[in-house]
């Protein structure tokens, strides 16, 4: 009995948490490196909201949520996440540059719009789908909703593939530290590689959102902490952030499950309580870096 609980319920959830954290932290490194800005977390620039809307739509489709049905969730989440990041990026781009302030504003506005659409969809469908308020909140605040191995069979290959793919771009991201022009001088095909990196970041975000909803601040806090301790070289930053992100969410999820037991706190509440003050600290201490 205990063994069944450990192997069929607890272990998949722990691995799911590790996948969520690794994916979000890696996506954070990708976005921060590409946009040259330490505040570009998938939650803050709107990618998570896009993925969440896509996942919501897929979950509401009248398809059985069995294996194949679940496979549709990350696909829809990926499509919407990619569309959102491209939209936010283009809204924020001013004369060939992407200032942090306009990126944050565009991300905020687009996220707000997508959340509104999501809320509307959830409310209008709530009766037919038998959604209760708690599960809606869980999704919006982030909750590792892995209850068996089936979801992991879809998500884990995406996350692991995405992390290896991200590591492939370590040199490109180092080159992007000089800006797009500087990267081109170092032999980077800027437009092509930018789309590939945004695509990978969206894929990782979508994979995470598909099994956990909106877990905020992981992609912000983790890369920063790793950068502070190990330096900004993406060859080390990428794998180290994936590991640290995985560990962070596993621990946060453990707290979420046990702090108010038997009531479960959404894991996103725990990461936000740690992450939001950190974000404010960053905002106040990196003013210099707006000016580029």
């Amino acid at each position: 009995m205990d063994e069944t609980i450990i192997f069929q319920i607890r272990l998949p959830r722990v691995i799911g948490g590790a996948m969520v954290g690794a994916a979000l932290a890696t996506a954070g490194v990708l976005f921060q490196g590409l946009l040259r800005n330490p505040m570009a977390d998938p939650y803050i620039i709107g990618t998570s909201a896009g993925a969440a809307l896509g996942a919501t739509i897929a979950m509401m489709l009248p398809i059985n949520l069995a294996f194949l049905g679940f496979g549709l969730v990350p696909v829809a989440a990926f499509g919407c996440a990619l569309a959102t990041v491209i939209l936010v990026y283009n809204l924020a781009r001013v004369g060939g540059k992407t200032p942090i302030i306009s990126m944050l504003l565009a991300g905020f506005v687009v996220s707000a719009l997508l959340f509104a659409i999501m809320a509307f969809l959830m409310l209008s469908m709530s009766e037919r789908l038998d959604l209760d308020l708690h599960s809606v909140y869980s999704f919006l605040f982030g909750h590792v909703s892995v209850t068996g191995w089936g979801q992991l069979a879809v998500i884990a290959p995406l996350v692991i593939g995405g992390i290896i793919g991200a590591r492939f771009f370590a040199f490109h991201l180092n080159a992007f530290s000089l800006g797009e022009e500087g990267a081109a001088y170092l032999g980077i095909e800027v437009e092509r590689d930018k789309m590939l990196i945004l695509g990978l970041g969206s894929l990782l975000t979508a994979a995470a959102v598909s099994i956990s909803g909106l877990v905020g601040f992981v992609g912000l806090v983790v890369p920063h902490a790793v950068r502070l301790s190990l330096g900004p070289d993406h060859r080390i930053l990428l794998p180290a952030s994936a590991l640290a992100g995985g560990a962070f969410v596993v621990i946060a999820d453990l707290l979420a499950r046990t702090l108010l037991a038997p009531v479960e706190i959404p894991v996103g509440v725990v990461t936000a309580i740690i992450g939001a003050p950190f974000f404010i600290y960053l905002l106040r201490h990196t003013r210099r870096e707006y000016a580029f």
Partner: protein
Amino acid sequence: MISLQIRQVSFSYLNGLVLHNIDLSIKAGEMVGLLGPNGSGKTTLIKLASGILKPTQGELKLDGSNLSRLSRRSVARSIAVVPQQFHIPFAFTVGEVVMLGRIPFLRAFAEENEIDKRFITNALELVGISKLRERRFDELSGGERQKVILAMALAQQPKLLLLDEPVVHLDIAHQVEILELVRRLNGEQGLTVIAAMHDLNLAALYFDRLVLLNGGRVVADGTPAQVLTEGRIREVFSASVSVGQHPTTGVPHIVVMPKRDATKKQ
């Protein structure tokens, strides 16, 4: 040693024509200064020569092969660019920044090998910043940063070095130091150099050949003495100047002539 042919090149941004029918032949091992007022097209010409802008008309040939057809990576293995300044938002060390110059030679997932490390060490030594290797780039002065960027460009083993007003923000000591280094590399290693220059006197001192641009056209091309004449400077820069001779080298030395009523009281 590498040559660059610029053949009947025109370029326009969406809002208008910037360069008209530029014809220049830069021989291997030459050191050429591009001069001209703001907006004359110097920076655009540097970007065209680097291959990141494609000409609207005409073509650029790098040692005979069409620059637009080469991949970015193969271009980056022969051409390095030093802009006015780079802002680097993350806390890279000097050694890590110079290491970026090896990116055109590295495969994904590979580590830098002994050859790469030797180029990095050599570049740091050439520029005279070996002792800064472990320092953080964002904590350096403007002049030191520009030396780091130059070292990064040298780690790229360029055959053609493009500089876009490389000393414009620096104090006089750093200006002279950087230009003398570039001059030495040009002399010792046959590095072909094209540099957009703001300061006419420094350009006259350090470059054998000057190309003067105005309104996107080449208006003069030759030795400093041929290009920097009083009449031409007055016409192109709309500034009243007197051209004398540098006391030791004899190259043209330009002195600004202020309007009488605009000078300070004695």
